[in-house]
């Protein structure tokens, strides 16, 4: 029996034992995890069956067809797209046991405490300190993070902090799993260009993290963070969408609905963008086929680049197409959304939110550097800070 058929049989058997109509949502999701049908590429015992990643879509489809509850992946994008693969790759057995299941079921939402006011593109410049308390063995963390998406909903965070200032910046960082309910964590909304506050400032004052929540070795933080970032780019730019999915579908529909707004110039731009969106979709399919066996490399950066350009191109076009209606906006009220939504709300929101697509998860400039250096093998920029101990760097 092929892996695909075997999987389909497992789903059918599972559904026979757990009727989606009568089983409690969380209970259903926990059982699905235990059956290895959560993320099939993960190992057995951790929600998967050690199968090819390419089979996931099939499982999700079968569950959706049966009307089964899903784990609302949009609400936990950072957890599923970034925290989970990193915990799987670098975590201890205990950490995987503790964190992966509630993460997948959505009982615990995650956020990412990487960026700081002085360390955005240059993430390795971060200054948040983690100092080991020799008596308890715990880490004591102090510092400020910024632009933290969804911190207001998060139960845990992936966190990078500086643990050694005497070595060059890339070598003195350590990666932690932080508890957002710790009394030292203060989350303050940060309003953004759309009016809402999707991201936050997070102040960390004497936050105590047990050593069992260190992910990877002390000083290995840069390597672990890079793994997370490669996954982040694929999560942002490489999502599986049907043809005309996402922004291009919305704008195409607007075009069909508004014959009076059509001009040859807009038509040309629309078709170019339509082609590019279809091309990006196919590139995503091919990238996922390549990834089916391995882990994301820097190639995902190229996907994210075109995703950002397209969303900006299309959302800008949509406003022009709407003419007078494009001059209006739905609502400037500061709200704190449950999840990040690139295409929801109205055209004005989409236009403004899309501006973040070339900044979040690495700016387009940084991604081009990554592609040029790590994929194409071109020389790195000249830099003076690589071999200097962190504490001696001008900041």
């Amino acid at each position, binding site marked *: 029996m092929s892996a695909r058929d075997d999987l389909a049989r497992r789903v059918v058997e599972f559904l026979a034992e757990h009727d989606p109509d009568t089983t409690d949502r969380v209970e259903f999701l926990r059982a699905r995890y235990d059956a290895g049908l959560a993320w099939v590429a993960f190992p057995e015992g951790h929600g998967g069956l050690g199968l090819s990643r390419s089979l996931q879509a099939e499982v999700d489809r079968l569950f959706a067809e049966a009307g089964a509850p899903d784990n609302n992946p949009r609400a936990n994008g950072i957890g599923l797209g970034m925290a989970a693969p990193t915990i799987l790759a670098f975590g201890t057995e205990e950490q995987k046991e503790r964190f992966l299941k509630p993460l997948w079921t959505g009982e615990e939402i995650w956020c990412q405490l990487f960026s700081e006011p002085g360390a955005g593109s240059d993430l390795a410049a971060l200054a948040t300190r983690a100092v080991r308390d020799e008596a308890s063995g715990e880490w004591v963390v102090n510092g400020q993070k910024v632009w933290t998406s969804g911190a207001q909903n998060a139960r845990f965070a992936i966190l990078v902090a500086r643990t050694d200032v005497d070595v060059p910046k890339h070598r003195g960082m350590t990666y932690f799993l932080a508890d957002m309910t710790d009394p030292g964590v203060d989350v303050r909304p940060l309003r953004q260009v759309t009016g809402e506050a999707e991201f936050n400032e997070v102040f960390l004052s004497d936050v105590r993290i047990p050593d069992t929540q260190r992910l990877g070795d002390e000083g290995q933080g840069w390597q672990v963070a890079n793994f997370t970032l490669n996954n982040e780019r694929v999560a942002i730019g490489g999502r599986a969408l049907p043809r005309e999915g996402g922004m291009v579908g919305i704008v195409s529909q607007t075009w069909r609905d508004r*014959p009076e707004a*059509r001009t040859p110039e807009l038509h040309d731009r629309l*078709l170019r963008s*339509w082609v590019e969106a279809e*091309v990006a979709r196919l590139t995503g399919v091919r990238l996922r086929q390549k990834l089916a066996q391995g882990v994301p490399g820097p190639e995902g950066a190229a996907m994210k680049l075109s995703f950002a350009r397209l969303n900006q191109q299309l959302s800008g076009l949509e406003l022009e197409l709407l003419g007078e209606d494009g001059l209006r906006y739905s609502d400037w009220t500061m709200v704190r959304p449950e999840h990040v939504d690139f295409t929801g709300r109205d055209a004005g929101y989409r236009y403004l939110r899309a501006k973040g697509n070339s900044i979040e998860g690495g700016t387009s400039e940084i991604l081009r550097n990554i592609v040029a250096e790590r*994929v194409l093998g*071109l020389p790195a920029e000249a830099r003076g800070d690589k071999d200097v101990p962190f504490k001696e760097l001008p900041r």
Partner: protein
Amino acid sequence: MTDLDLLPTDIEEDLRASVRGVLDRRCGPDTVAAMYDGDRAVVEPLWRAMAVELGLAGLLVPESLGGSGATAREAAAVMEELGRACAPVPFLTSAVIATTSLLPSGDELLGALAAGERTGALVVPFSTAPDAPLPDLAEGGTVRSVAGALEADVLLVPAGGTLRVVDATEAGVEPVVSLDMSRQLADVTVPAGAGRAVEGDGEAAARAALLAGAALLASEQHGVASWCLRETIGYVGQRRQFGRVVGGFQALKHRLADLFAETEQAAATAAYAAAVLAAEDADLPIATAVAQSWCSEVAVHAAEEALQLHGGVGMTWEYPVHLYLKRAKADQIALGTPGAHRARLATLVDLPGGTA
């Protein structure tokens, strides 16, 4: 629906390696450049080697008719390699377009084409998009800018809704100075009533052949773009100015990163068009329009960037970049411009233009 496999199979990789081997041995840039000075002596033996030894001529012909019964996916691997070498062989015009136009009828000529004993060409301007009007030579006449006619000993001529098989000796084939001399064009004059009619709807057969040609041309364009990208990365990675390697300047790195992304996207798009063609999937017209719109532009962009980033070297005849620029630009116009394909796409995906 499961996604078609866009990664090459082992069979495709083997074929690709064989094609590349022959091209490496027999078709360097100097050979191709010589064609601009009128030396076409290379084409015949090179095509013979590829057509007969590698069986490329009969790739798309069913085994029952003497071919190897491979699919468009293998043909795409060949096209990509031909693009990478700017190879001057009539694979696209004979083994893809002329052959495909005969497949619906199962005409006896297919056996000779498959064996590489004869080489064919469809008599339409090479710029003809799959849905553009075809010439009609029922009363005889001349068709300008036909690709593959110089190499062909048998011509497939649209005449009154049928295709006629005309021996090249019965027609006038006048070579023209072409932008891309590695795929030199000819003006073809056919007398009224020449040759014999092929069975069936010749117009539909010719359109299907042009559509298949356009779908596979995307792979050639991807091959051209990959060559340009790789050569350029190699060049800027060793060329020094201002005391450093010029490939370390961010302005160049970013352009090459963008070109890499476009080229990877071309790979996926061309692979999809070929996979859809191979699977006889109804998505072929859309897949082809998308592939031609994208890959045509990427090949030209890659060749133009290659020339610019090679500086003065890029402008020299001695260096092969110019061959690729000419191939890329001619390919952009071949079988419909990107604009023509987008116009077709607008209808196919229900995004009509104009004011209502």
